[in-house]
């Protein structure tokens, strides 16, 4: 017989695989974020570009150095560090100084990820750990928002000194007068959608973030459960409060287009490592994140609650996973034996 025995590869089944790999998944998320990132550069100029480059670069270099230092295999090529750096940049003010990018990247890839054991082992979303660390360590720089370059000619007055986010302005009004008034710089729902407002580099365009999220859904990188339940909960609760007392609580559309809700719900809460693994668990997680976001935004000390909500949600993931794991097929535990026959 004609074939020598060594001709073929052995190897266990299955002999075919779905074409996705960890690296490709990371790349898809980066691709999905690019429109929103580039829009941030368009709005805020060169400094925003610098923040993007620095955060991503620092994250990759620091992770490589960390892996060399602790003698772990170098797997920085899996793209997870680059994605973390990019997400961090999108969560910073567009004029963040270089040293904040460095500290943020270090906190993200070393403190929040490396010391937990690297990719797949961390409990908290690394980019959000870094953002919250910077927010409580350098509150002044972290809330120093640059004015956007007013696209679509809505003509906001440029106020270079400080430029509050709509959520911060709202919180301020509530604290001083107890009711909502018109927001400064002529902010409207439309300017929230087009990104003509103060805020983090990557949370400007509602539409581009929605587009990126839709891309991830279509590519099946993420499932619908977390974004839908997260956003749905925020809309439902803020809607309820708005109906009860419109003088104190803004309408759901306002909450939808301002702050980091879209960025958080589609790109941060859906991080595989720090979110539940089953559909049911993801729904619970999304609702929990939405609930916490609303509580912090409406009644908490911070104007924006998405980052804190997701981190608190992350902490609940092991518990959620534990109680939402599917029941083994054919399991008759706790069921009458008769049902198997029905």
């Amino acid at each position, binding site marked *: *017989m*004609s*074939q*020598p*025995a*060594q*001709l*073929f*590869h*052995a*190897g*266990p*089944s*299955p*002999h*075919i*695989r*779905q*074409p*996705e*790999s*960890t690296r*490709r*998944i990371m790349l898809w998320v980066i691709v999905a974020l690019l429109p929103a990132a580039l829009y941030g550069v368009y709005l805020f100029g060169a400094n925003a570009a610098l923040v993007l480059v620095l955060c991503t670069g620092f994250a990759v270099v620091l992770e490589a150095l960390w892996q060399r230092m602790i003698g772990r295999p170098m*797997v920085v090529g*899996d793209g*997870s560090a680059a994605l973390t750096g990019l997400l961090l940049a999108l969560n910073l003010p567009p004029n963040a100084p270089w040293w904040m990018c460095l500290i943020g990247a270090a906190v993200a890839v070393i403190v929040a990820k490396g010391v937990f054991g*690297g*990719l*797949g*082992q961390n409990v908290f979303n690394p980019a959000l750990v870094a953002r919250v660390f910077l927010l409580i360590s350098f509150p002044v720089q972290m809330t120093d928002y640059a004015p956007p370059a007013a696209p679509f000619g809505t003509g906001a007055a440029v106020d270079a000194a400080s430029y509050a986010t709509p959520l911060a302005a709202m919180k301020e009004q509530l604290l001083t007068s107890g009711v909502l008034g018109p927001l400064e710089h002529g902010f409207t729902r439309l300017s929230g959608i087009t990104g003509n407002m103060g805020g983090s580099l990557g949370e400007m365009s509602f539409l581009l973030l929605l587009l990126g999220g839709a891309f991830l859904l279509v590519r099946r990188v993420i499932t619908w459960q977390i974004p839908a339940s997260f956003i749905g909960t925020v809309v439902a609760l803020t809607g309820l409060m708005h109906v009860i007392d419109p003088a104190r609580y803004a309408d759901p559309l306002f909450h939808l287009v301002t702050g980091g809700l879209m960025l958080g719900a589609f790109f941060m809460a859906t991080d*595989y*490592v720090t*979110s*539940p*693994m*089953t*559909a049911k668990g993801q729904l619970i997680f999304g609702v929990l994140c939405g609930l916490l976001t609303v509580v912090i935004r409406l009644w908490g000390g911070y104007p924006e609650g998405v980052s804190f909500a997701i981190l608190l949600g992350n902490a609940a993931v092991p518990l959620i996973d534990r109680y939402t*794991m*599917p*029941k*083994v*097929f*054919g*399991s*008759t535990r706790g069921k009458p*034996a008769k049902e*198997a*026959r*029905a």
Partner: protein
Amino acid sequence: MRLFEFPGGVHPDDHKELTRSKPLEALSAPELLNVSMAQHLGAPAQPLVKPGERVLVGQKIGEPRGFISAAVHSPVSGKVKRLTQVPHPELGRCQAVLIENDGEDERGYQPPERPWSELEPKRLVELLAEAGVVGLGGATFPSHVKLSPPENKPIDTVILNGVECEPYLTSDHRLMLERPDDVVLGLKIVRSILGAKQALIAVESNKSDAAAKLSAKLIHGDSGIEIVVPRVRYPQGAEKQLIYACTKRRVPNGGLPMDVGCVVHNVGTAVAIRDALVDGRPLISRALTITGMGVDTPKNLLAAIGTPLSALVDACGGLKSGTVKVISGGPMMGIALGTLDQPMIKSTGGLLCLTASETFKPEQGPCIRCGRCIRACPMRLQPTLIAARTKLDDFDECLRIGARDCMECGCCAYSCPAGIPLVQYIKLAKSEIAQLQRRRKEEAR
């Protein structure tokens, strides 16, 4: 509309277009055949012939050893040259009878003493055991065992499995198209043996022509046979999943289909049962698919048991350069062969010749908790957690979270983007659990 579905599963590209429209081609038996004594699950048969002896087509040459075993017959007439050892995909090596084909095709079998409908079910089952009929779907479980349920487990539903959910394979599809009458007759015989009320034929929606052909056969004959068309999904053909998809009954953990009143047979088995009980022809050949980008002309063949695999490949124009893997069976559960220098056996449902680009495997990295394996597992297990516990040698926990219920379909490993061989970890856990339990039983004594 009723949905014939089961939870979980995956949907790989099926690549059935390579052979779907190619009629079954009967391959003449080669000059030398190595008929293995281990053709199926269960004990290998005991050779009944000596070197130099002449055998006839269908003559029994291997005696079953024990209940879960099946007889082996000569596919040709000719002379027994010697008893040999041949490679076996699962056992490593096993005993075989080397037969020199004299090309005369002299028949050594007769139809049963009376038409099947006049025989007792018990006698029919005996005849099937004598004919060496085993399940041709993959596991090759001896058919007479499945047709002898204990009295306290009445069977009300027979399901004929024409799902053929493994990618690439199309021989069941061709059988349904080319021998629909025999498929239906086989089902009727099985139903009558078991005294079952309900009979179903499940054909996945990518074989709607076969479903239509079978339906047309049912119009005139007796009804009570229903064609069920589930959506395309792997592993639809797994017994527990197919039973759930068709009847919504759940086979309990550690249980068998008969625990929920069901028996599942493959369509190829139905044809073999019909051949054995109508013509008296033992199981000496089978339909199989030779396919993949690595073979020159993919085909569906009807070949004699004992034919060298290399002869099957040669009948399809040989291998192309760049073929890196040859698999006995489908790509999801088939076994990669080291060599073609071995005979085909009753469980050889296909030969899949894959090129490097068809066998992509991502580089192995850490689990990123994406949950794909959990969503894919048709048994609703948590493959990544079982794998993690296996790495820690925590087999008690593996047992607790259901490792033993794994049917090794490979959906988890297929869907893992981190390239983790999840199903291998679970197989390891299963064997460790078995050892652990054996040890504990001994200690308890």
